């Protein structure tokens, strides 16, 4: 049986190589001795990682991005929690339309979200752009990710459990807090980590809305024009990839634990 799919197996391995090609190359250039990003490699060095430490502007951008990503993760997960609860446990008028609208940012071209918010915030409301405007926009585009993860956590949660808590004298709020919340906790952690990762990496919208203080991707974008800075970017990228893989592995661990807790068979995938 296994041998039947031999051709398919070869294809899938080739496809994975294609998917991972940039990630495999990244550390090669980050540890390479030459300023020019090309083959052949010339020698091993860690000086580009040292270069990261000597760039204060980068540190500011990273701090700025971390603050934005944390706020976004909390905002998007909280709003996503409401939507996922309403969507999985309740019926209400125009449910499909409402849920569709909330999920819409997932398929909206990012540039449309960016220019629409730019027009409203700057031209109509005459506000000053800054970290807050990026947070507001990132919360909007991260909410659908949070909802799809949390839906998984809520879908097979037995509503009878919360009802039992109500019968036993808890009110709606304490019932949720003591019963439902701990059960969906792994989903919440997974959602926080994923939305954090999306926000930290987002460039297209941040470029329009960040104002004078660049976020990390906007700062990297500025560096891409200077060839002598490229190895430092490779070093930064290597660290970022390592960080994302770590966060995603933790997120995946919690997502699976959440599914196991709800007693669902794992169908896999964040989306």
């Amino acid at each position: 049986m296994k041998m039947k799919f031999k051709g398919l197996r070869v294809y899938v391995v080739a496809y994975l190589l294609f998917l991972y090609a940039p990630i495999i190359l990244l550390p090669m250039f980050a540890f390479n001795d030459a300023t020019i990003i090309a083959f052949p490699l010339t020698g091993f060095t860690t000086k580009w990682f040292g270069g990261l430490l000597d760039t204060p502007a980068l540190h500011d951008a990273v701090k700025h991005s971390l603050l934005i990503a944390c706020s976004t993760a909390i905002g998007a997960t909280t709003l996503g929690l409401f939507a996922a609860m309403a969507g999985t446990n309740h019926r209400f008028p125009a449910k499909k339309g409402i849920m569709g609208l909330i999920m819409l940012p997932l398929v909206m071209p990012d540039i449309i979200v960016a220019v629409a918010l730019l027009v409203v915030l700057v031209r109509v409301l005459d506000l000053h752009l800054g970290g807050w405007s990026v947070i507001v926009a990132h919360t909007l585009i991260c909410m659908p990710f949070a909802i799809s993860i949390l839906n998984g956590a809520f879908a097979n949660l037995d509503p009878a459990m919360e009802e039992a808590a109500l019968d036993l004298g808890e009110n709606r709020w304490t019932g949720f807090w003591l019963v439902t919340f701990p059960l969906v906790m792994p989903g919440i952690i997974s959602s926080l980590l994923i939305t954090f990762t999306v926000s930290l990496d987002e460039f297209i919208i941040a470029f329009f809305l960040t104002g004078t203080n660049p976020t990390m991707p906007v700062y990297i974008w500025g560096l891409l024009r200077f060839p002598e800075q490229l190895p430092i970017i490779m070093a930064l990228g290597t660290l970022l990839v390592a960080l994302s893989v770590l966060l995603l592995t933790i997120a995946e661990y919690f997502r699976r634990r959440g599914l196991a807790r709800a007693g669902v068979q794992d169908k896999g995938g964040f989306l």
Partner: protein
Amino acid sequence: MSKRRFLSADERRGLTLVSPPLIYTVLLLAIPVGAIVLFSLWSQDAQDSMKVDTAFSLANYREFFSHPVYGQLLKRSLMISGLVTTATVIFAYPVAYFISFVVPTSHKSLWLFLITIPFWTSYLIRVFLWKVILGYNGVVNSGLMSLHIIDEPLTFILYNVNAVVLTLAHAYAPFAILPIYVALEKIDRSFLEASLDLGENKVTTFLRITLPLSMQGVVAAVLIVFIPTIGDYVTPKLVGGAGGTMISNMIQTQFLKLNNAPMGAALSIIAMASVTAVALFFIFLNRRWLRGRT
């Protein structure tokens, strides 16, 4: 108030719960999109960059149709998005099929995880690395030259439409694989056995059972790749060269460089409307195809 009486307690609770995310989406998506529709009908004050002339006119749209450069950009963008979508979905389908039909159940989520990891890692740097891979002294060229397959670096792989398509197909791969995988997972395996028992071979079973039943996932994949790719201005700028610019680059220029928000708004509306029209037409074609078969 009178309407409230028709809602049950459960419905009221549902509406209360959904209202924070709903209000957020309306305030920050629906109203802003409405605002750019309005802006597209206004025009930019030539002196004061913060001022717009609020007299309604179709001048921006007229400008779009009177200068062929805009139309060409839009046509090229739709073509690139179409190519990206076709390539992404066709190359993704066998992978989704492999995970659904070949990989043992216990390893499926590990495989899906493996496929999503590259997607979550720094987007800008990923796009930039494609430039390194495809460049004049890049990985592909130096590799092929050291193997003596070519004598001179290939130039048709960077700074053109091919490079944009390849890079975007890479970026959107998981968006195509996951919906197709979900649709394939839903297929009742006994249909396939029944088809084989009734004398179909592997290929006809795939064409008559598996493919039509997974079409829902393919459609989802097409939409989730096609619509967002039109809004990408980074990939065209980094790897597209002069021949690979897309409508989003023009929108970005109008807003951030030329400071002509009304024209940028009009271009955004036109781009969004064309993408939606193409997407709806595709859904319509697919419905007819599926109906024609039953």
